[in-house]
């Protein structure tokens, strides 16, 4: 990327993409790279030290979602955890049925896994959402058949921030004897999660979204639920995920989980206020801007708007030059010719979806950051709209 001659401030507003490792987390990890480098399976003091530290981290991660430590399987990240949950249950319960349910607005880690299972011969129902990105539990109820073996519906939507009615969906799945998985990568540490209260059988977590390191995640599997391992080659993680544990990563994830849980109530309130200030400011300062996602049932850190008559990448490049990091659901940023499948499922036109902007707030952000965005974005939009052949004044 080119230099940023005009950047006065650095404002990172892409915390849903990834977060920095917190200093406390890094400090907790550092001893486990060189000094305490043991393999947790080894029968000697180096091994014991690693094992003990992993056990401690497992308790902290479990505590974040009110689970028991032995219900946590560490993985290489959220994507692997989603794969393990969905393929692992589909393969383990194949003799019980051939039908799976998910939604149209899942993360690709879930969506593409279900598409792969379709190619294996499974039948998959993709339930829709409403214009706010909200899934109707009754749609899930109606989709359940005698041969349904798994429902997977995400908790907090990663693009538009809508919080799905997981507890009700879990209740419906349980009534019908169907297992229920939820991807909680965006919601964990941001809003309270209690897997027992929410009727969840499997739940996906990721470390690097909560100020832990990249390359580590976890799958919660309720006690008694059997799944087929997807990575084989050892007895690690109670025979469910082979491979020498990423000890420093797991330690970091544990510490990040502990801090997230301790700070959650206060941080959720603080971020919600910043979020609402940013949303209100964008709608007030820029004409033809619409909020994407639910106005109330929304993750505390998510802001997503469509800026009409513009394409997202052109705005991101201008924001980056001014020191602001954000993301977009336009085709250019999705890596395909289609804009975000989530925005399209919500009924947005292609044109409006191309103009979407996501700002995801985090620990480092302040009111001054929000003020800065509200100061620099209107002139960027004005300049780009003057260049656009669409919209009022274009003569079309």
């Amino acid at each position, binding site marked *: 990327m080119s230099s940023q001659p005009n950047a006065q401030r650095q404002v990172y507003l892409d915390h849903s993409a990834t977060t920095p490792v917190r200093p406390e987390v890094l400090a907790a990890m550092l001893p486990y790279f060189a000094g305490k480098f043991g393999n947790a399976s080894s029968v000697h003091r180096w091994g014991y030290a690693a094992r003990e530290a992993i056990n401690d981290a497992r308790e902290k991660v479990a505590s974040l979602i009110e689970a028991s430590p032995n219900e946590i399987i560490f993985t290489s990240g959220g994507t692997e955890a989603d794969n393990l949950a969905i393929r692992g249950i589909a393969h383990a319960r194949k003799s019980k049925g051939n039908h799976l349910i998910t939604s149209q607005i899942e993360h690709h880690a879930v969506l593409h896994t279900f598409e792969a299972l379709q190619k294996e011969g499974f039948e998959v129902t993709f339930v829709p959402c409403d214009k706010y990105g909200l899934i109707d539990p009754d749609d899930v109820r109606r989709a359940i058949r005698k041969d349904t073996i798994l429902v997977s519906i995400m908790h907090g939507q990663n693009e538009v921030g809508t919080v799905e009615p997981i507890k009700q969906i879990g209740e419906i799945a349980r009534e019908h004897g169907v297992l229920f998985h939820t991807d909680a990568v965006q919601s964990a540490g941001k809003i309270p999660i209690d897997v027992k209260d929410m009727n969840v059988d499997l739940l996906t977590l990721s470390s690097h979204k909560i100020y832990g390191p990249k390359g580590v995640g976890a799958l919660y599997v309720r006690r008694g639920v059997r799944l087929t391992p997807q990575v084989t080659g050892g007895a690690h993680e109670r025979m469910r995920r082979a491979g020498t544990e990423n000890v420093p990563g797991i330690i970091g994830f544990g510490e990040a989980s502990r801090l997230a849980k301790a700070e959650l109530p206060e941080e959720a309130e603080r971020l919600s206020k910043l979020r609402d200030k940013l949303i209100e400011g964008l709608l007030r300062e820029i004409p033809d801007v619409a909020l994407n996602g639910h106005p109330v049932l929304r993750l505390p850190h998510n802001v997503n708007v469509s800026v009409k008559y513009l394409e997202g990448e052109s705005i991101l*490049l201008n924001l980056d030059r001014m020191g602001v990091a954000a993301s977009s659901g336009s085709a250019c940023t999705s890596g395909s010719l289609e804009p975000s499948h989530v925005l399209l499922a919500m009924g947005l036109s292609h044109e409006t979806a191309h103009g979407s902007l996501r700002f995801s707030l985090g620990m480092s952000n302040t009111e001054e950051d929000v003020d800065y965005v509200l100061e620099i974005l209107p002139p960027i939009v004005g300049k780009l709209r003057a260049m*656009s*052949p669409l919209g009022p004044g274009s003569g079309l």
Partner: protein
Amino acid sequence: MYNEKVMDHFFNPRNVGELENPDGVGQVGNPVCGDMMRITLRIKDNRIEDIKFRTFGCGAAIATSSMVTELVKGLTLEEALEVSNKQVAESLGGLPPQKLHCSNLAAEAVHAAIQDYYKKQGIDIEIKTEEHEHQEHGH
């Protein structure tokens, strides 16, 4: 992602706007696909005397639009028709591979504007269109 020259044309685009009473107007792309360009031409003695563009699209779409206006200004219509999308990308020092397919339509917009001018003169010309995924994509 983009090189300095692309960024320069994106942040400081040349010849933005719309000519009044243009001799030729060309519009290619579609907002549905995320890219749309509109070129207006002033033609004098078979040469492009003035040119302006308006573009809805990503960084590459805007940079290629700006670049093509510089490339064809002053050229004869025959010369301008020879300028290709590929040449525009090369003049910018290259584009990321994924952008060559979807956001590199600027030369076509110029060709369409020239075609429009000829049409107004009562001349029908065949415009070669370059192959790219954008057209095959079709919404």
